[in-house]
C-alpha cells in the first residue's frame, strides 16, 4: 500500500514539472515584449524595467526557468502588479471562499444525487426513473451561469427567500478571522450571523453542484441496477430479508465504489466551475479572482493560479486513487 502511494506521488512530479514549463513559457511567449505585454496599458519605463529585473528577462531562458522553479519551490508565486500583493497572500485570503463553495456543491450533489439515483433504480424505465433522467439531462445541459441567474432571479429577486450575492451580509459586521464565511459566523456565536452565512451558500452551491448532481445520479442509478441483478441480492431476498436491509446491506455496499470514484473525479470540474459560479454570485474566492486577473491582464496571477489549480486537482485525484484502493481491497496496487 505504501509503495502504491509513493509511486503515485512520484508519478505526479513529471506532470507538475511539465506544467511549470508550459506556464513559464506562457508568460515569456506572450506576444511582443513580455514585460510590456504583462504591463499593457500600465507600462511606464520604470515599471517595465522593474518587471524585467524581477523576471530576469535579460538572462538566458534556461536560467530564467531555473530561477522561476526555485522561487516556486520556496512558495513564491510572484506578485500582482495591480495591487502589488503577493499571489500567495491573496490566495490564502480567497481560497477559503472557494473551498466552502466546493464543499457546499458537493454536499448538494451527493446528498441529492445518491437518493435520486437509488429511487430511479428501484423501477428502471418507470415514471420516476423518467423524471430523474430528465432532471439529470438538464443538469448536464444547463450552463452554470444560466442556472445561477435563474436561481438569483427566482429566489433572490422575485421571492426574496435567499440572499443572491456575496458570502455574508456586511451589515452584520462579522470579523474575518479564518476567511471561511461560515466558520467566521460560527465564531461570533450569533444565530443571525450563522443563518446568514449558510443562506448565502445555498444558491451558489446549487448552481455549481448541478453538473455533479446529474453525474452522481446517473452513476448511482446504473451502479445500483447493476448490483441489484447479482445472484447474492436474489439470495438475500429469497431468504426473506426485509427490502430495506437488502437495499442497505447488500446493494448499496457494493454499488458504492463507482459512485465514490465519480464523486472524487468531480472536484476538478468543481474548481473550474467555481470560476463561473463566483462571477455570477460576486463570491470572493479564487475563481472570481482568475476572471478579474484576466480582465486586468494580470498575467503573473493568471499563470500562478492555473498552476495552483492544477496542483490541487492532481492532489485530489491522488487522494481519490488512494482512497479507492482503501475502499476496494480487491484492487491491485501495481
Amino acid at each position, binding site marked *: 500500500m505504501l509503495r502504491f502511494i509513493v509511486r503515485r506521488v512520484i508519478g505526479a512530479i*513529471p*506532470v*507538475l514539472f*511539465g*506544467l511549470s514549463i*508550459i506556464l513559464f513559457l*506562457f508568460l515569456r511567449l*506572450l*506576444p511582443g515584449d513580455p514585460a510590456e505585454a504583462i504591463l499593457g496599458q500600465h507600462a511606464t519605463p520604470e515599471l517595465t524595467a522593474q518587471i524585467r529585473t524581477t523576471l530576469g528577462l535579460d538572462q538566458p531562458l534556461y536560467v530564467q526557468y531555473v530561477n522561476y522553479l526555485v522561487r516556486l519551490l520556496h512558495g513564491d508565486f510572484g506578485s500582482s502588479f495591480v495591487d502589488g500583493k503577493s499571489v500567495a497572500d491573496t490566495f490564502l485570503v480567497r481560497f477559503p471562499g472557494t473551498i466552502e463553495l466546493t464543499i457546499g456543491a458537493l454536499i448538494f450533489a451527493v446528498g441529492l444525487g445518491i437518493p435520486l439515483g437509488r429511487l430511479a433504480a428501484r423501477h*428502471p424505465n418507470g415514471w420516476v426513473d423518467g423524471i430523474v433522467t430528465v432532471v439529470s*439531462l*438538464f443538469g*448536464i*445541459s*444547463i*450552463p*452554470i*451561469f*444560466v442556472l445561477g*441567474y*435563474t436561481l*438569483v*432571479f427566482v429566489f433572490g*429577486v422575485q421571492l426574496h427567500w435567499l440572499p443572491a450575492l456575496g458570502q455574508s451580509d456586511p451589515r452584520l459586521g462579522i470579523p474575518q478571522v479564518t476567511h471561511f464565511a461560515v466558520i467566521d459566523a460560527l465564531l461570533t456565536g450569533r444565530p443571525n450571523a450563522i443563518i446568514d452565512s449558510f443562506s448565502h451558500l445555498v444558491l451558489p452551491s446549487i448552481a455549481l453542484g448541478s453538473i455533479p448532481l446529474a453525474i452522481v445520479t446517473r452513476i448511482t442509478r*446504473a451502479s445500483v*441496477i447493476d448490483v441489484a441483478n447479482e445472484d447474492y441480492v436474489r439470495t438475500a431476498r429469497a431468504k426473506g430479508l426485509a427490502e430495506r436491509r437488502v437495499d442497505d446491506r447488500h446493494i448499496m455496499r457494493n454499488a458504492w465504489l463507482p459512485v465514490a470514484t465519480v464523486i472524487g473525479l468531480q472536484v*476538478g*470540474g468543481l*474548481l*473550474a*466551475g467555481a*470560476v*463561473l459560479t463566483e*462571477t*455570477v454570485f460576486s463570491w470572493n474566492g479564487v475563481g472570481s479572482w*482568475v*476572471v478579474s486577473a*484576466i*480582465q486586468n*491582464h494580470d*498575467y503573473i496571477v*493568471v499563470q500562478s493560479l*492555473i498552476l495552483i*489549480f*492544477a496542483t490541487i*486537482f*492532481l492532489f485530489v485525484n491522488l487522494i481519490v486513487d488512494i482512497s479507492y484502493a482503501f475502499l476496494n481491497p480487491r484492487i491491485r496496487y501495481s
Partner: protein
Amino acid sequence: MSQPIAIVTRPTARASRGLWRDAFRRLMRNGPALVGAVCIAIFVAAAVLASVIAPYDPTLGVLADGKQGPSLAHLMGTDLLGRDEFSRVLYGARISLTVGVVAVFFGLAFGSVVGAVAGGAGGKVDAVLMRVTDVLLAIPGILLAIGIVAWLGHGQLQIMLAVGISYAPIFARLLRGTLLALREADFATAARAEGATPARILLRHLMPNALTPLIVQATLALATAIIDVAGLGFLGLGPGDPRVAEWGEMLTDSARFLQSAPYLIFFPGAAIVLSAIGFNLLGDGLREAIDPRLKR
C-alpha cells in the same frame, strides 16, 4: 468480434446489413435521440436561415425602443440598445454552432493525430505524448481554455482554438486507448503476418475500427463545447465584436438588468440549454445505437 467466426456461422439477414445501417435503424427507433436530432435541426435551420427568418437587423437597434418586453413586434423583446432579441438569438445560433462545431473539430483533429501516433507507435513516443496530455488534463475543464484565450487574445478563431486544444487531450487519450486494445486483435496480427507496414496497419486496419467511440465522444463534446464557448463569452472572453451576437455575451450584457428585463437572460439561456440537450440526447442515442450492449 473476430471475423472468421462470422464467416463460419453464415451471417443471417440481419447481420449482413452492416454496422452503420444497423446503428442507423436503432437510432431511428430511439425516441430521445430523435428529439435531440430535431432540436439540433431546428438550431441549424435557424443558423442557416437567420438572414431570412430574422425580422430585424441583429446589430441595429432603436435606442428609444430599448428593453421592451416580449410583444408581437418583438417576440423576445429588445435589449438595452433596442435591438430585436429574437433576431439576435437567431444570429447567435450561427456563431455558437459554428464556433462549437469547429472547436470540437479542432480538438478531434489535434487529439486524433496525437492519439494515433501514440497508439500506433507505442514505446517511447507513446510515453512522451501521454505525459504531455497528462499535463494538459491536469488543468481542470474550462480553465485551460480560459488560459489559452487570455494568451491568444479575443476573436472567434482564438476561441475555437482554445476550446479545441482543451478538448484534444480527451480525444487523444480515447483514441490511443482504443488503438492499444485493437493492436492485439486477431485481424491486426493477421495483417502484420501478411507483412503490412505499421502505417498501413494503423490507417487501414486499426483506425476504421477505432472511429466509433471517437464519433460518440465528439457528439457529446459538442454539447459541452457550446456551453464552454458561451462560458467564455460570459466571462468577457467572447469574440469581442459588437457586430456579432453571441449567446454568452448576450447574457453578460443583460445580467445587470436581471430585475427589470429577465427575458434578456431567459431567451439566450434557453437557446444554450436546448442546443446542449440536443447534442447530449443525440450523443447518448448514437452510443446506444452503435453499441447496443450499453443500453441501460
